[in-house]
């Protein structure tokens, strides 16, 4: 049986899980933003990572077939999309039910009308989301359940009569958290079967839809469409096998802010500093300086050629300069955290922000808005201020010495990325800068790698000594 290793990174805003094989290759990733207890968060992330791992294994097994029939690739991706949608849908059904119950429990006189509006909204956003999952690959965008629903729900609530606004928002706020925190069990095989059935319908319906898509797309699609029956049967065997296979986790390591709360034995708990550095170094072996901006902490880490930490600095008690600050700012502007970066990128200049203090920033932002400053410019200024703080931290830890790798959830924010790139270049010249799409998973990856090594007995230095 193949051996796998699990790393779990319990951050203050998200929990991540990574599964690796014996070659340190990532075969599964899972992430959740549930704010339930850490145990549930870890389980949800792990479960996701396992589904992801099965898809990876499936793709691996089909390597030869895919080489021969490239259309398999498209089919696999489609199965994945539907699979993700089915998972989403299950939770969505739960949310619908909870929302209706919540409204039903209201003491408002007009609660029937509220229920009607709620149904209207759900009837609009349900198909909308389904469409985005199946046709626009929403599932691959790493968005959380809450964010996906929130955005569209809010949009629709805005459109209904003002008198329903309060109750509808209240219903959502009351319902979302318990739904989000619910652990849902899926059967991989059943879900894949369902997905394949959905695809069957989809492909049959595609025959006459040749409008503005590009040629290559249709050649691929046609190939799938024409062959999907045969594909389906050759896949079936593999799917059955993979679905039945146990993902045998030999060892696991927990890290992150909530690591102490994980029900893991003591030697399976590692500091996130070590894990982030190890993970970043594994992906980019020439890394010597790692900047990690997480929800609660920002860390500047120096590593040696083995990926082991030689020194690190964390932000001081003040929350300025880490992801949490962005959260406050998003709240202040009443927008979602995902919209911050893109809006800041529209700025034509950065407004000076002097108070990186979360307490004062709010007042400052309001004053700037009153003074007629443009919102994107203020946001740009705020992003810059955060990055300035992390630059100080890097300076504190000894500066950028060689390749520089930027990790953590905040690395996905384009505006932060822009300023980090600019400022590192300003201060340290043309150093190689690495930012990976998996940046948010670096801690979990490092954890999984520590799990594989069982660090005490199997360190790189020891390997070197034997050589």
């Amino acid at each position, binding site marked *: 049986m193949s051996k796998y290793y699990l790393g779990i990174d319990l951050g203050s805003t998200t929990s991540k899980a990574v599964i690796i094989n014996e070659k340190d290759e990532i075969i599964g990733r899972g992430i959740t933003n549930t704010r339930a207890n850490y145990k549930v968060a870890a389980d949800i992330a792990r479960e996701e990572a396992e589904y992801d791992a099965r898809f990876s294994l499936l793709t691996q097994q089909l390597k030869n077939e895919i080489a021969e029939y490239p259309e398999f690739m498209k089919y696999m991706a489609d199965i994945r999309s539907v699979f993700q949608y089915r998972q989403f849908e299950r939770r969505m059904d739960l949310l619908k039910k909870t929302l209706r119950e919540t409204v039903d429990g209201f003491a408002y006189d007009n609660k029937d009308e509220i229920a009607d509006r709620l149904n209207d909204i759900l009837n609009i956003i349900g198909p909308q989301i389904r469409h985005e999952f199946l046709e626009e690959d929403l599932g691959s965008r790493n968005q959380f359940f809450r964010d996906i629903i929130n955005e569209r729900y809010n949009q629709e609530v805005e459109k209904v009569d003002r008198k329903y606004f309060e109750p509808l928002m209240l219903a959502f706020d009351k319902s979302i958290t318990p739904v989000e925190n619910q652990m849902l069990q899926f059967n991989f095989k059943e879900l894949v079967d369902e997905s394949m059935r959905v695809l069957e319908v989809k492909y049959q319906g595609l025959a006459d839809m040749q409008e503005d898509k590009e040629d290559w797309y249709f050649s691929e699609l046609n190939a799938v469409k024409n062959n999907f029956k045969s594909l389906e049967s050759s896949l079936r065997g593999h799917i059955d096998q993979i679905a039945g296979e146990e993902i045998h986790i030999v060892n696991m390591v927990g890290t992150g802010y909530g690591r*102490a709360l994980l029900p893991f034995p003591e030697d399976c708990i590692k500091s*996130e*500093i*070590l894990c982030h550095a190890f993970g970043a170094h594994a992906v980019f072996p020439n890394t010597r300086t790692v900047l990690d901006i997480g929800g609660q902490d920002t860390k500047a880490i120096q590593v040696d050629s083995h990926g*082991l930490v030689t020194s690190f600095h964390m932000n001081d008690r003040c929350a300025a300069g880490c992801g949490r600050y962005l959260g406050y700012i998003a709240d202040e502007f009443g927008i979602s955290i995902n919209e911050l970066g893109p809006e800041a990128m529209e700025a034509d200049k950065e407004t000076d922000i002097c108070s990186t203090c979360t307490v004062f920033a709010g007042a400052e932002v309001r004053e700037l808005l009153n003074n007629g400053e443009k919102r994107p410019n203020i946001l740009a200024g705020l992003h810059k201020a955060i990055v300035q703080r992390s630059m100080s931290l890097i300076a504190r830890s000894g500066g950028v010495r060689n390749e520089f790798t930027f990790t953590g959830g905040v690395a996905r924010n384009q505006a932060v990325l822009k300023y980090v790139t600019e400022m590192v270049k300003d201060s340290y010249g043309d150093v190689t800068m690495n930012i990976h799409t998996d940046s948010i998973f670096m801690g979990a990856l490092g954890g999984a790698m520590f799990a594989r090594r069982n660090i005490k007995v199997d360190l790189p230095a020891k390997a070197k*000594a034997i050589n």
Partner: protein
Amino acid sequence: MPQEAQKEKSMILQKEMINGLFDELEKAKETGKKVCYTFVPGNLSELIRTFDMLPVYPEINALQSAMRKKSGAYIKEAEKNAHSEDVCTYVKCDVGMMLKGNIGPTGQKIPEPDILLLSYTGCFTFMKWFETLKREYPNAEVIMLHTPYQENGEIRPEMTEYMVKQLREEAIPKMEKISGVKFDEEKLKKHLKLAKEAQDWITKIFETTKHRPSPIDAYFAGVYYIGPINIGFRGTQEAVDYYKELYSEIQERIDLGLGPITPEGEMKEEKYRLVVEGPPNWTSFREFWKIFYDMGAVIVASSYTKVGGVYDMGWRHDPERPLESLAEYCMNCYTNLNIPQRIDLLSKCIQDYHADGYVTNSIKSCNSFSAGQLGMMREIEDRLEIPVGFIESDLVDPRYFSYSNIKNRLESFFQMLEQRKIITATEEVV
């Protein structure tokens, strides 16, 4: 268990000394003894004793209040009285205690000062503190004894001369006037001789951490050990006896190969040897200590235990130069050293005591310690290639101690140390 019994003996001695002092303070009105408020850094115990006065140390009262969980309320009281949230919490704790009736750590009332002896050594806040006290106690005599800072890493003759003149022409005449006791240089010399003896012993005690395992923790237990020498007993036979006793107890631990004693018994395995810069947190002193001993970390030297005098570089009171040595003593206290001197001293500790790591506890209240610590840490890290750790807390403000924050940072630091140790070990094999 013989060593347990002996451990208690030095502790009993210390307790007796301190209780005796507070008893005397309580009865000061009746006995007619004069009360002198002063500070630990640059404290002139020998001179105070020469005039048969009783010392009160406001910052010791503040830290004691913190250990008894009373500081939070005192600080709030001071903040209600226009004190800023951002200034030294020793001051605020003391002001709050005063506003609440000036009941000291033993539950006895502390008498008002007859003299405010401000030998302001290495800390500007002391000056502001006594300006504040002077307004509360308008009848107290103030003696401002300016201790020049070792800005160039040296004591120039004019600095000593300046201090001696202040002692001779201002401090001593005022003390004579208030106490009604004539200055007796021979008596001062006797106290200085005993002070020197105590300094010899305490130096030997702090040097025992060179042993492996270290028989004591030079920070968490060290703060208790420095008690007698810092709070008014330096220059007495009692202090000498205490340190002799303590030394023999520690010697016994060394002979038995025992590690330091913690509140939860003996530390089993010495995994890391550390040097710590900065005062401890007092409000959560036990929890703070526990994070270290749970990880098998022992502090082999700390700068905080040198605030009341730096003795490990060989300096001693000299009975033959009484006033000069009082002056030098003040100028030699840790926070009166400049940043390069502090770096050198800490580096020497790291090397002499074979430390594996260096930790800064950055105290919000204390700019004298904290301003510059980050630069010091970088320099030490570069110079000695030693792992460094950085945490933040406060002296006596319970709002400024975040257990999880500190634990998280220290855990990372210890795991980094562990990695480094394994690497170094394997590299040595090669």
